[in-house]
C-alpha cells in the first residue's frame, strides 16, 4: 500500500485537486486580512462566477476566453458593488461584527436563490465532458486538468505575492491591513484598499470556479459548501496570513487524501473537522482576529 508510486500519485492529485480551494481560500483570507471581515458574500460571488461562465459557454456558445472575461467582469462588478454600497455603508454606521456576517451570508443566499430561479438545480459542468486526457509521467497519472489547476493556482499565488511585495498598491494593502487608521494618517485611503481587495478576490474566485466547474457538477448551493473549506483553511492558516491559509488548504486536501491509507474513508471528512475542532477548542490562541473595531472605518 505504501509503495512510492501510490504516494506520489496521491501527493500529485491531492495537490492538483486542492488548487481551486487554494484560490478561493486566498481570496477569502486576503479579504479578511485587509478588511477584517469574514466575507461570506464570496459564496454568492462564486455562484455568479460559475453561472456566468456556464451561460456564456452553453447558452451563448461563445469561446472560453469570452466566458472567463465575462465572469471576471461580472463577478468583479458585483464584488465592488457589495463593497461600496454594502460593507462601506455598514462601516460608516459603525455596525458590529454580527451585522457584517448577516449581511454577507444572507446576500449570498439571495444571489443563490436568484440563480436557482434562473438555472434550476441540476448539477451542471462548464463543459459537457468532465474527462480530461491523462499522460503518465513516471507511472504517475497526470491529467490535463491537474496541470491547468496547479498552473493557475501557482500563477495566482505568484502574482499576488509580487503584487503585495512590490507594487505600491500592494504595499498600501498591507499598510491598511496592519492599521487602517494609521494608514489613513499617512495618506493611504483605506476605502481604496478595500475596493482593490474586493476586485482581486473576485478574480481568484473566477479562477477557482473555472477549475471547480471543469472538474465536476455544480449546483447553485455548492458555493455555500465550498466557502466553508475557505473558512477552515483561513482559520487553520491563521488569520492575516494569506499564504499560510493557502498552505493550509493544500494541507487539508493532502491530509484527507493520505489519511485514507490509514483510516476508513468514511471518516475522512470528519478528520477535516477534527482538525478544525482541535484548533478551535484547544489552540484558539493559535488563531487571532484582527481588532475589528480598529479596522472599521469611521471609528
Amino acid at each position, binding site marked *: 500500500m505504501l509503495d512510492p508510486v501510490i504516494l506520489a500519485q496521491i501527493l500529485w492529485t491531492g495537490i492538483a485537486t486542492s488548487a481551486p480551494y487554494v484560490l478561493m481560500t486566498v481570496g477569502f483570507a486576503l479579504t479578511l486580512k485587509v478588511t477584517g471581515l469574514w466575507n461570506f458574500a464570496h459564496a454568492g460571488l462564486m455562484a455568479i462566477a460559475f453561472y456566468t461562465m456556464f451561460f456564456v459557454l452553453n447558452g451563448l456558445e461563445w469561446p472560453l476566453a469570452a466566458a472567463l472575461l465575462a465572469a471576471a467582469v461580472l463577478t468583479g462588478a458585483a464584488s465592488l458593488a457589495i463593497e461600496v454600497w454594502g460593507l462601506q455603508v455598514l462601516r460608516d454606521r459603525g455596525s458590529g461584527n454580527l*451585522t457584517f456576517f448577516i449581511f454577507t451570508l444572507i446576500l449570498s443566499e439571495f444571489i443563490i436563490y436568484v440563480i436557482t430561479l434562473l438555472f434550476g438545480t441540476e448539477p451542471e459542468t462548464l463543459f459537457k465532458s468532465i474527462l480530461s486526457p491523462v499522460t503518465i509521467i513516471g507511472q504517475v497519472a497526470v491529467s490535463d486538468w491537474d496541470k491547468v489547476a496547479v498552473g493557475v493556482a501557482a500563477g495566482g499565488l505568484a502574482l499576488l505575492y509580487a503584487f503585495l511585495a512590490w507594487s505600491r498598491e500592494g504595499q498600501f494593502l498591507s499598510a491598511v491591513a496592519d492599521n487602517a487608521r494609521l494608514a489613513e494618517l499617512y495618506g493611504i485611503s483605506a476605502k481604496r484598499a478595500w475596493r482593490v481587495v474586493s476586485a482581486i478576490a473576485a478574480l481568484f474566485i473566477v479562477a477557482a470556479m473555472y477549475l471547480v466547474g471543469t472538474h465536476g457538477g455544480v449546483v447553485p448551493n455548492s458555493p455555500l459548501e465550498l466557502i466553508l473549506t475557505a473558512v477552515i483553511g483561513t482559520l487553520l492558516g491563521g488569520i492575516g496570513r494569506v499564504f499560510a491559509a493557502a498552505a493550509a488548504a493544500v494541507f487539508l486536501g493532502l491530509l484527507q487524501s493520505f489519511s485514507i491509507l490509514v483510516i476508513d474513508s468514511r471518516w475522512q471528512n470528519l478528520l477535516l473537522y477534527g482538525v478544525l475542532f482541535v484548533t478551535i477548542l484547544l489552540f484558539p490562541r493559535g488563531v487571532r482576529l484582527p481588532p475589528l473595531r480598529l479596522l472599521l472605518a469611521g471609528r
Partner: protein
Amino acid sequence: MEYLATIGVLIAIYVILSSSYDLVIGYGGLSTVAHPIFFATGAYTAGLLAIHSGMPAPLNVVLGGLAAMLASVLLAASALRVSGDYLLIASLGFQLGLLQLIKNLDFTGGPGGLTGIPGTVTGAARTPFFLIVSGALAVATVLGIRAIVKGPYGRAITAMRDEELAFTALGRDATSMKIVIFAIGCGIAGIAGGVYAYYFQYISPDQFDVLQSAAILTMVVLGGMGTTWGPVVGAVLLLAIPQAITFLNLPPGIMAPAQGIIFTMLVLLFLFLRPAGIVGLARKTL
C-alpha cells in the same frame, strides 16, 4: 385540525428557538451561528433516550436541554478566551463538526436520520397535547427571557453590550456573564429540540445545518434583535407566510426560490433601512 395544528407546533418551536437565539445575539451581543446545533443536540439526546432508555419523556427533554447547555459552555468557554469576534467563526466550525460527527456515527442513524422515536402520546389528543405543551413552553420562554433582560441582570447585559471594556473595568465579570447567557439560550434551544423529536418522531442531520442558522437569524433580524416580541413576530411570519403563499397557486418551480428571494431581500432591506427590525425601536447599530 391536524394540518394547522402541526404548523402551530412548528411555529411554537421556532418561537422558542428564535427567542432564545435573540437572547444570545440580540441581548447578549454574542455573535454565534451555531444555534441549530444545540437544537440538534437536544433533539438527538431526547430522541436517543426515548428509544433506548425507559425514562419519562419530560426527563429526556430536560436532559436534552442540559446536553445542549453543556455543549454550549464547552464552545463558549474556549472561544471567548480569545475574543467575542472569534466566537462567530468558532461556532460555525463547531456546528459543522458536530453535524459531521452525527452523520458518521451509527447510533445516531447517520445521514439517514434517527427513526423510531416513540410517539408517547397517542390518539386524537396527541396533536392538541403537543400544541398546548409547545405553546406553553413558547410563552414561558418569551416571558422568562423578558424577565431575565429586565431588572438588574438585564441592566448588566445591556451595559456589557454597550461598552464591554468600561463594564469590566467597573468590576463586572463579563466573560462569565457571556458564558451564562450563551448556556441559557442554547439550553432552551436544546429543550425545543427535545419537543421537536418527540412530536415529529424523526430527525435528520441536514435539518440543522448552516441554512437553518440563516433561517433563525432571518426570524430574529426581521422581527427585531434585542426585543421581546421581535423574534416571535419573525418566527410567525417566516412560517405562516409561506403557507399563505401556497394558496397563490404559483408554479412550484418559481415558488420556493421566490420565497427565498423575498425573505432574504426583506432581511437585507431591514438591515440597511431599519436595523432594529419590525418590532425594535430604531437603534443605530445592531
